[in-house]
């Protein structure tokens, strides 16, 4: 399983793997927002928590279909399904690899982008913490969406339609933590809720995703 994790990470880093795509998308999105709403610093700092979270979410979505689609096309998913490790483990490892190559860079880049959006200085800490806690949930929920649409020809658009509603709770609690952090309020409750969602997603969704993949490979 560790080897599978390494394989996926290496594939993502090599050329054509799409590493950095999400990061670039995140940067562009954050650059576009001031053009849309105007350069007013106060306004930007008011909407910064939401924009950063929505940006992270969309950047995550962008690379989701790579989790299974390429392996499905060249047949390695069939091999993985018949391998002696459980398919649930394969799914979990692939979601983890997706998080390391997409979610983790976002977490690292987010403070710099928060700077661009005049994010309140008290909120930086919470932005990093909440992204660190929340983005694994995005990868695991996303792996479920990707598993549902893996056999479909133009699954990408459908997958976003399926996955985005599932992201709502994570987004609500994530943005709430940053907003509260910026205002100097207590953040423990939304943070705990978000951690709960992430842990629940990690524990349960690989089973649902593996079930979907078994159906697709049938």
């Amino acid at each position: 399983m560790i080897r599978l994790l390494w394989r996926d990470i290496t594939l993502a880093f090599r050329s054509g793997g799409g590493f950095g795509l999400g990061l670039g998308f995140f940067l562009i999105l954050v650059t576009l927002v001031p053009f849309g709403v105007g350069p007013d610093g106060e306004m930007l700092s008011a909407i910064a928590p939401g924009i950063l979270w929505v940006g992270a979410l969309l950047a995550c979505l962008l690379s989701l279909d790579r989790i299974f689609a390429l392996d499905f096309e060249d047949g390695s998913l069939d091999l993985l399904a018949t391998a002696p490790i459980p398919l649930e483990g394969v799914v979990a490892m692939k979601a983890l690899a997706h998080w390391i190559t997409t979610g983790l860079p976002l977490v690292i880049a987010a403070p710099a982008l928060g700077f661009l959006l005049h994010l309140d200085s008290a909120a930086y800490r919470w932005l990093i913490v909440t992204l660190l806690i929340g983005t694994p949930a995005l990868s695991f929920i996303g792996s479920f969406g990707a598993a549902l649409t893996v056999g479909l020809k133009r699954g990408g658009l459908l997958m976003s339609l399926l996955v985005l509603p599932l992201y709502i709770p994570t987004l609500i609690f994530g943005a709430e933590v940053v907003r509260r952090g910026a205002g100097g309020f207590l953040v423990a409750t939304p943070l705990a809720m978000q951690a709960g969602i992430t842990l629940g997603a990690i524990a349960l969704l690989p089973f649902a995703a593996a079930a979907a993949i078994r159906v697709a490979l049938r």
Partner: protein
Amino acid sequence: MAINWNAFWEWANPRKFMRWTDRALPVISVLAAVIFVSGLVWGFFFTPDDYRQGATVKIFYIHVPSAMMAINIWAMMLVASLIWIVRRHHVSALAAKSAAAIGMTMTLIALITGAVWGKPMWGTYWEWDPRLTSFLILLLFYIGYMALWEAIDNPDTAADLTSVLCLVGSVFALLSRYAVLFWNQGLHQGASLSLDAEENVSDVYWYPALVAIAGFVLLFVSLVLLRTRTEIRARRLHALEMRERVKDA
């Protein structure tokens, strides 16, 4: 196929299902029409205007039942999906599929009547209120569920994947429902018809509302039976076509 032939599951056999619905459907449809119309007529013409809301209160007879149905139809789809996953009765999967479109319509009706009522009462068609928002989210879930059905050619694969989506979606819909409570304070009033609440709507509005709800439930039952019958026929037609093609080849 190994089917446990106890009395209850016999109803799920497609042929038997077709036979009993053939007889039951006319009765249920007529009953649904009568109760639906009488509930709405009673509600619209034979109840007094509210002293503050005037005649706008009467949208209640469409809004509340459709909102209830929107949630309950998703619950019904959840049960049907579970039955499909566990026992693999085709009628169950098809019933869930048929119910989705009705549920989406009910959600839309609840949202639109709410907006129409909200404009004179709250001064706005739309507010990011927890209840309103969760209904919008529910609408998204219905749309996603139906889109997944449409996207997959193989009916069994489609039934499997949509069932899994329905299970996971239910958890997340519930999660979103309580997450939005956290996110914004409400403008919407509390439950209108809960049995244990101290403050409820007065009896003048309560009885016609019950009739209207019964009408909506029966309407849903007759529509779902009708649509499931259509799906079964479409499936049979497809099977016949395939058989012909094999014969020709």
